[in-house]
């Protein structure tokens, strides 16, 4: 769970629950923990339900942020699956190195706590490499390029799989691990091919990521704006848009309106027009997927047979043109607005009414001190399109099923990977996979979804609202938050980014060219898109076209 959301929920909970109940819960959890520690076999025999209920009470909603002691307690209570597969002291003398992030004092900080009881039980020792987000990519790529991989277990985002799994640097997941972590429980888009290369599974998912659509409900409940919409000659109802065609029309129309909350200039959709270290490209992607991702075609960025970029096909050019068409209906400094600005300085601060972003906006809307839109924000999956580009046929199609939706699974989420360097030592390999499986366990993941961890829900079982309600969460709020994500994750036409080597190089160079397009330095969107495509071709040639084709096809499961 994201920290902001947790704090918000905690704040709400503290008002509602009496202190005695909270204390009783904490005491009960402590008792359960102590009991389970003394009876290792009992934890598993009791089944998941009791454990899930018990861990969700650590430290207990309304009891403040979890501490290292809590992480250790949760780690200990979730050891049942490990104990079923590993004998006590089995990894005595084994030393493993774990490389991960230290963002917001989460990630590795939690892993340390979770794995401490695992270390005590198995006898293995873990050394830690903590990295800031900004240093992560360079550290990983330098380790790979210079052949100095000095870690056994790696926390990594799926987009880097091409760099690691594609180069044979990761260890294939043993079957016992698949069973232990109950992979069938993953949400649709995290199932193969994600996490797999050439049919082999490498990734233990610990997170889910996607862009969803955030909109201002007060704009759509305003009788005044609705009347103005009618007066402007529009036949359709004034309601939250479900297609990009509607988003465009609403954005242009809102130029003449006042924001119902702040009484300042109203704005429609907010495009980040400035780069963000490659991450900005995801936002054009969110506009483009409904046009470019045909339900019958798994690819939308490159041709799988040639790696010829599709970024300059009609679908992507239309998305770029859409941005150009509404630039004058966006705030004055939009050309210098990156996604951080559109999300946190604009939308949450009451500027603009529509936005694509990761789940952080939904959680921050009600929790951030600078947010003024907490009570007027609604969520849905990304808008669709009335027609979709069939790249293979070279024509636009209107689907019989209605508008084409293709939620953008931007970044896919964090996972745990075991490096191939453990392969020569069976004991070490088993230890590494056991540690990774412990972190990716079904019960532990529920706790991570419910408390600050840096990770979003990613299993079907995380969307059991009653479990959250039982733990003391507000049903309406959590339902709204989770369903927008679940609908995206499980969408049959989800656009999943290619996990090929150097994918952020493509995004980064595209950002540079997009900046030129938005600054009017190209004659047309097509001309700019052609420049992106040319730059992408260069990158593909430099990295190696044949290997990129093979890896791209593998990432698509072809």
């Amino acid at each position, binding site marked *: 769970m994201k920290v902001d959301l947790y704090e918000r929920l905690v704040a709400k909970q503290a008002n509602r629950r009496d202190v005695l109940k909270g204390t009783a819960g904490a005491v009960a959890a402590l008792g359960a923990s102590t009991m389970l520690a003394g009876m290792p076999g009992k934890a598993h025999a009791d089944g998941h339900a009791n454990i899930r209920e018990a861990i969700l009470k650590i430290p207990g909603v309304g009891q403040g942020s979890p501490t290292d002691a809590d992480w250790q307690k949760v780690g200990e209570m979730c050891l049942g699956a490990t104990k079923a597969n590993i004998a006590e002291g089995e990894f005595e003398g084994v030393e493993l190195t774990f490389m991960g992030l230290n963002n917001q004092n989460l990630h590795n900080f939690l892993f340390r706590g979770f794995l401490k009881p695992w270390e005590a039980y198995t006898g293995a020792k873990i050394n830690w490499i903590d990295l800031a987000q900004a240093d992560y*990519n*360079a550290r990983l*790529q*330098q380790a*790979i*390029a210079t052949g*100095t991989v000095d870690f056994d277990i790696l926390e990594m985002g799926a987009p880097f799989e*091409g*760099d690691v799994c*594609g*180069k044979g640097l990761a260890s294939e997941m043993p079957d016992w691990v698949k069973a232990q972590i109950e992979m069938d429980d993953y949400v649709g888009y995290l199932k193969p091919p994600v996490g797999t290369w050439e049919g082999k599974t490498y990734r233990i998912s610990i997170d889910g990521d996607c862009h969803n659509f955030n909109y201002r409900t007060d704009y759509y409940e305003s009788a005044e704006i609705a009347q103005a919409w009618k007066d402007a000659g529009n036949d359709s109802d004034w309601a939250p848009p479900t297609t990009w065609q509607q988003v465009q029309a609403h954005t242009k129309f809102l130029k003449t309106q006042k924001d119902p909350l702040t009484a300042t200039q109203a704005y429609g959709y907010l495009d980040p*027009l*400035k*780069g*963000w*270290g*490659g991450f900005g490209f995801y936002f054009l992607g969110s506009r483009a997927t409904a046009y470019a991702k045909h339900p019958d075609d798994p690819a939308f960025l490159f041709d799988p047979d040639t790696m010829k970029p599709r970024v300059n096909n009609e679908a992507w050019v239309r998305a770029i043109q859409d941005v150009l068409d509404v630039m004058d209906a966006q*705030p*004055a*400094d939009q*050309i*210098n607005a*990156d996604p951080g600005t559109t999300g946190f*300085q*604009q939308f949450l*601060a009451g*500027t603009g009414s529509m936005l694509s972003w990761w789940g952080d906006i939904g959680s921050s809307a009600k929790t951030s001190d600078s947010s003024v839109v907490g009570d007027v924000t609604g969520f849905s999956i990304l808008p669709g399109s009335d027609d979709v580009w069939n790249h293979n046929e070279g024509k636009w199609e209107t689907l019989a099923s209605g508008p084409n939706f293709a939620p953008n699974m931007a970044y896919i989420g964090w996972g745990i990977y075991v490096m191939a360097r453990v392969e020569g030592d069976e004991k070490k390999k088993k230890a590494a996979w056991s540690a990774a499986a412990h972190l990716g366990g079904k019960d532990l993941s529920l706790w991570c979804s419910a408390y600050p961890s840096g990770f979003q829900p990613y299993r079907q079982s995380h969307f059991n609202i009653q479990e959250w309600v039982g733990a003391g969460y507000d049903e309406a709020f959590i339902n709204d938050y989770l369903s927008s994500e679940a609908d995206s994750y499980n969408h049959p036409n989800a656009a999943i980014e290619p996990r090929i*080597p*150097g994918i*952020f*190089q493509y995004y*980064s*160079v595209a*950002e*540079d060219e997009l*900046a*030129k*397009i*938005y*600054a*009017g*330095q190209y004659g047309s969107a097509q001309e700019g898109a052609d420049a992106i495509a040319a730059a992408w071709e260069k*990158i593909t040639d*430099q*990295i*190696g076209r044949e*290997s990129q084709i093979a890896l791209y096809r593998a990432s698509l499961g072809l």
Partner: protein
Amino acid sequence: MSMTGDLLHTVDAEDLSAARIRLGRGLVWGAFGLLAALFAVQALFVSQVTSLGFDNWRPVLFGYMLWAIALCVSRVLIYGEQGKKALFVLPAALFVISMVVFPLVFALWISFSDWNLASLTGRRFNGLDNVRQMMADPFYWNAMYNMVLYTAVILVEYAIAFGLALLLNADIAARKFWRVTFLLPLMLSPVAVSWMIGKSMLEVRFGPLAKLARWLGWENPSFFSSPELAKFTIMAMDAWTFIPFMMIMILAGLQAMPKEVLEAAEVDGATPWQRFWEVTFPLMLPVSITAIMIRIIFKLKLADIIINVTSGGPGGATDSVTSFIFREYRDRSNVGYGTLLAIVYLIIIVIFMTLLLKLSERLVRRYTGAG
């Protein structure tokens, strides 16, 4: 007094034995042989020509250190007291070679290669391909053009700095307070300036400077909305940070200037403008040129403010060479090409600064009659 021979007046001329000299030579050549052998073994191993080698290059580094020590000892063994003189300089020279010359040579070697960290094939020598790519790279030349503009603006910064220095040198109230106040921007990290000024004070909705601009009648005070405006704002932010640096150097020069010269000019009937233009300015020229040179060096490294505030945009309008190389390196892992760009930039800077020094030397000579 003799002006030739041993000016250090070495006490003992020493009669060094042939065996000692042989030992010295043997030591240095032996250590060099070991270093060369270690290098050859590891190079062949890394190139997969042989299967014998080390896990890393550390043994070669140890070999280099051993050779460096042997070189120093051999100077004394071969040249005696005279050789000891070399020990004052040799360690520093070897250190510079290790930390500056070797990395430069290594960078030059990398810059002629196709090395994308994401590539499965690793580094490949690609001749002049990177140079050809650079010649046709609009982003690089756009950044270079921006650097010309950024550097040209130093003259304006210099004029402002000179004015402020004159002001602070005058007999004004609370002079010490103003001197410290004017120095404050220099004490700030450019990253802090980026966030404090660029991201907060200039923020179009709630930034105080934007609010002030709105109050003054600018309807949409967006400081980065057009290429020209964005470039100007970046220039202004950078100038705000570094004008105090030039100012303090010029102020030091003004304070060191003999008062008698100005008094004599005044007695001779020179107007205030004549006193400045004909006396103060020429006398301050050496200090001014030093200040400008150092400022140019700072300016050529301009990157942090741009990376943080505009990412080089809109459309590359504010990109500097360094911020572009940063993107090429960090975001695109394009080590070979990025290194070539940096090497070319270094060469251009060296040539530019050398020409500038020659030019300024002439200028000083012309104005002051010195040299």
